[in-house]
């Protein structure tokens, strides 16, 4: 067997090894080098897998050569190869950035722990995405969640600890619900392999334990994915975490759980059960609208820039669930492409906010919160950083030429396809709310005079700007060349809908 055939295993194993190595070597710089190398390799592997799946169709990899359904199977198709590229790509960008950012935000002696946790975090996310085994999925979910709690708690603000603790409690409830759901499914089918489970479930779809499993799974994932109204842990967690962590988690963690939701709904429970015989589309539609309108509205009134964009994330997740609720190929495709389109824009924005925080931090001082009174007149001092945030904001609004527009366009098409014209209006209103909160930043940064007595600041260092601009440039790129996002998403959506009917 050649190395290329083991790529699916290496995708997870390499980052997984990098974390203990980082701990053993106990040196910040070495740990950084190891985890960064692991992330870049993972990104290369993910692209290779994506190309392979695009050319030859789905890959099934049997760990240790144990045949499924007894052994653990890694199964890669159009959908998760796409998410793998997102997760590993964001990790590959965030890690080089984290070096300059962590210098200012985290005490030197815990640097190696930080990198180890970062490695574990995206290992877990990659594992959730790639695995074809229900219990394996739960284990990886826990790996990523536990490391995320630690990463958030590393924030210098004392509120980071409470935010992390709260997230830990809520995340544990969510994980418990998910494991209950998986247990119930195991009870009913006697298998943990997802594909096997799907075939065995077909006969017993409307039994009560299966329905209960669906309910537990939906609520558990809604919690982890911050689907309205179970999003309340998210704003604090994003706000007080170190900047690099916020960017990584915001761009990938919720997206991966949403992927798990799509996987379970369409591959395991089946579209006809989830959407046709149960009133789930209606519930999902209402919750999505609330997320789009309420969370975006609340975002307008935040005084902390990180918190503002955290609420905007809840609104954007509303777009993803809105696409799901249409129960059509176009709607599903819009959801899938928004995983990436939103991930890169939000990741870029949080990286740039991190650059602001790092630049405002004095040597040995506490990193200040990016509140609006500190940002007044910042565009004169940090023109590139502020301009990047505005471009990212354009994508959140859905301005043509940015990735966000591509999603909006497909969402609108999906809404029109269902003759739901009023939804077009709702999407428009939520875009206007997005205009308002992005405008708040523009007004403060570009039109206000800097606070009196503030020391003049220079532009952020290139070590911070370049990774952030990679994501901002990707936002523009995927707004113009949509062959990667739209084609993959449409393919994946068609396969999912076809297989689950």
């Amino acid at each position, binding site marked *: 067997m050649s190395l290329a055939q083991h790529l699916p295993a290496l995708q997870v194993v390499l980052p997984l090894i990098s974390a203990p190595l980082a701990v053993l070597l106990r040196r910040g710089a070495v740990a950084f080098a190891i985890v960064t190398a692991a992330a870049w390799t993972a990104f290369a592997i993910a692209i290779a897998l994506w190309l392979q799946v695009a050319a030859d169709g789905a890959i099934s990899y049997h760990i240790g050569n144990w045949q499924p359904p007894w052994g653990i199977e890694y199964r890669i198709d159009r959908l998760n190869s796409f998410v793998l590229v997102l997760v590993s790509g964001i990790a590959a960008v965030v890690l080089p950035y984290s070096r300059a950012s962590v210098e200012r935000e985290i005490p030197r002696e815990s640097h190696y722990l930080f990198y180890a946790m970062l490695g574990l975090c995206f290992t877990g996310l990659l594992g959730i995405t790639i695995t074809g085994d229900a219990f394996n999925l739960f284990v990886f979910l826990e790996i990523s969640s536990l490391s995320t709690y630690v990463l958030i708690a590393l924030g210098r603000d004392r509120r980071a600890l409470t935010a992390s603790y709260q997230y830990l409690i809520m995340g544990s409830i969510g994980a418990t619900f998910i494991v209950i759901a998986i247990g119930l499914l195991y009870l009913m089918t006697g298998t943990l392999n997802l594909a096997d489970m799907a075939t065995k479930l077909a006969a017993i779809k409307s039994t009560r334990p299966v329905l209960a499993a669906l*309910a537990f799974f939906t609520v558990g994932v809604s919690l982890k994915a911050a689907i309205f109204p*179970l999003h309340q842990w998210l704003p604090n967690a994003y706000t007080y975490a170190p900047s690099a962590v916020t960017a990584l988690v915001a761009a990938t963690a919720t997206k991966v759980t949403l992927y798990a939701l799509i996987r379970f709904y369409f591959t395991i429970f089946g579209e006809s059960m989830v959407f046709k015989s149960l009133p789930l589309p209606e519930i999902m539609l209402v919750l999505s609208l609330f997320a789009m309108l309420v969370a975006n509205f609340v975002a307008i009134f935040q005084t902390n820039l990180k918190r503002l964009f955290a609420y905007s994330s809840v609104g954007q997740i509303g777009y993803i669930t809105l696409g799901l609720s249409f129960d059509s190929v176009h709607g599903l495709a819009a959801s899938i492409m928004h995983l990436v389109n939103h991930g890169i824009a939000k990741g870029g924005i949080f990286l740039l906010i991190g650059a602001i925080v790092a630049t405002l931090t004095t040597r040995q001082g506490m990193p200040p919160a990016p509140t609006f009174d500190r940002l007044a007149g910042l565009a004169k001092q940090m023109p590139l950083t502020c301009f990047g945030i505005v471009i990212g904001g354009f994508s959140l609004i859905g301005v043509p030429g940015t990735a966000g527009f591509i999603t909006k366009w497909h969402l609108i098409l999906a809404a029109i396809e269902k003759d739901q014209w009023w939804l*077009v209006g709702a999407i428009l209103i939520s875009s206007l709310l997005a205009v308002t909160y992005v405008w708040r930043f523009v007004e403060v940064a570009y039109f206000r005079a800097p606070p009196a007595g503030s020391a003049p600041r220079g532009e952020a260092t290139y070590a911070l700007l370049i990774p952030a601009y990679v994501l901002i440039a990707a936002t523009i790129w995927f707004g113009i060349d949509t062959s990667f996002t739209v084609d993959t998403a449409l393919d994946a959506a068609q396969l999912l809908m076809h297989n689950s009917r």
Partner: protein
Amino acid sequence: MTITELSPGLTLIVGSLLIPLLRGRARSVYLVLLPLLGLVHLAQLSTGEFGVLHFLGLQLVTLRVDRWSMLFGWIFMIAALISAIYALHLRTALQTTAGFAYAGSAIGAVFAGDLMTLFIFWELTAVTSVLLVWAGGTASAYRAGMRYLIVQITSGMLLFFGAVIQFKATGSLAFDHIGLDAPGGWLFFIAFGIKCAFPLLHTWLQDAYPEASEVGTVFLSAFTTKLAIYALARGFSGTELLIPIGAIMTAFPIFFAVIENDLRKVLAYSLNNQLGFMVVGIGIGTELSLNGTAAHAFTHIIYKALLFMSMGAVLYRVGTVKGSELGGLYKSMPLTTVFCIIGAASISGFPLFSGFVSKSMILSAAGQGAYLITWVTLLFASAGVFHHSGIKIPYFGFFGHDSGKRCKEAPVNMLVAMGIAAILCVGIGVMPGPLYAMLPYPVVFEPYTASHVLGQLQLLMFSALAFSILMWTRIYPPELRAVNLDVDWLWRVAFPSAWRYGVGLWESLLASAASVLAAKSANICSLVARHRQADGLLIRSWPTRSMAMWVMVMLLAYLLVYYIGK
């Protein structure tokens, strides 16, 4: 893809991004070279559809070259050149960068062959041009810019929805004749109408343009509204409704212009009036009238820019353009005075000036088509134009009672820009042949017939007579330091007060109903204000127990729904 397949708008937009990187003389040279490069680019184009892109399964035509788009492409590029020269004295790069990006967007929109491309450039003109309004630098310019932006973006959104509806109904995004009965026709009509400053939708123009800097207004006056004229001519030629709309547009600004004191505002009103002529031409929809509209847009851009430039020069040197504070400036700024008079003669339609050869086409078309009331209105409007733009602007600015203000002549670059515009005004007036050759349809029209010339002169003489008599008898409204109310009073004062009144009424009703209710009837603003305090609903973090409760609520809800829904 060669240069002939790229929109010339992109030349300006991409080129504009380099402006902030250059300094001093290099920037000045570049500012003049860039529009010249654009003119060369235009000259290379050949008729047809190019730059076809496939995007999201749609076919986008980014470059459609025909007689309509070429004519507007030329005049927009010339306007960009003149404005750039006029802006050479500026030390900062913001206004020229925004101005070129704005001109490039307008040109890109003119060459757009489909509605999606049109929409993108349409919105780009809005965001780039608002920077010019804000460059005015005052607090009122900032607020006027915000209002301007909201109006312009609204127009873009309507256009977008019109495009979506048309695409849904016909499967095509092509931008051809639309008409009111087409799917989404009214959305397009209002979208274009907002940008074209139709009556009641016009207030953004008088609101924003006079707030911009002296350079900004020159850029602004050229592109946005003429882009709308172009879009209307493509999409709604021969739509009868446009005739009364245009006629009203020509007439009503005259009254406002006569009593207005801010001379740039007077010009903004007369801009509106001139657009009215073009709208009437589109509404009539014959080859003669459409030619008239195209020709009038061409000449109008030049003489309007000339007038705004002369007032801008006054603003730059004196610091105000209030009629009541000016006068006697011809002694200090003789060249600017001459240029202003040439612009005034052109807008008034004096024979041998550019306005005459284009406006008479529209008037003749109205006369031939037996639109008597329209024709009379247009005649009245022509007289009015002469009155407020032809006489009032030069008279109060440069002659009139001597204000005692003495200043230097305008900077050389301004004089050069005004000189070029003035030469074009006279040149087109004397030799209309080259312009006529560029028009969309073959021209069989002779402007210099005895009846045209005599008729126009009569009209102008009577108007001058009226002005003289009014001044002599002191009936003419004195130039007061007053603010005149337009219908934007409705949007900005009346509706909000009515709303507040309504809310107040509602509150008092509730208060009388029950004291408990009354306590909660505070209006939504104060509610929001209260909840954005530290522990308000919008700001506070949720305690863990309430999150856990929501989890239970959701789980129970799902279980119930599933069990029952099964």
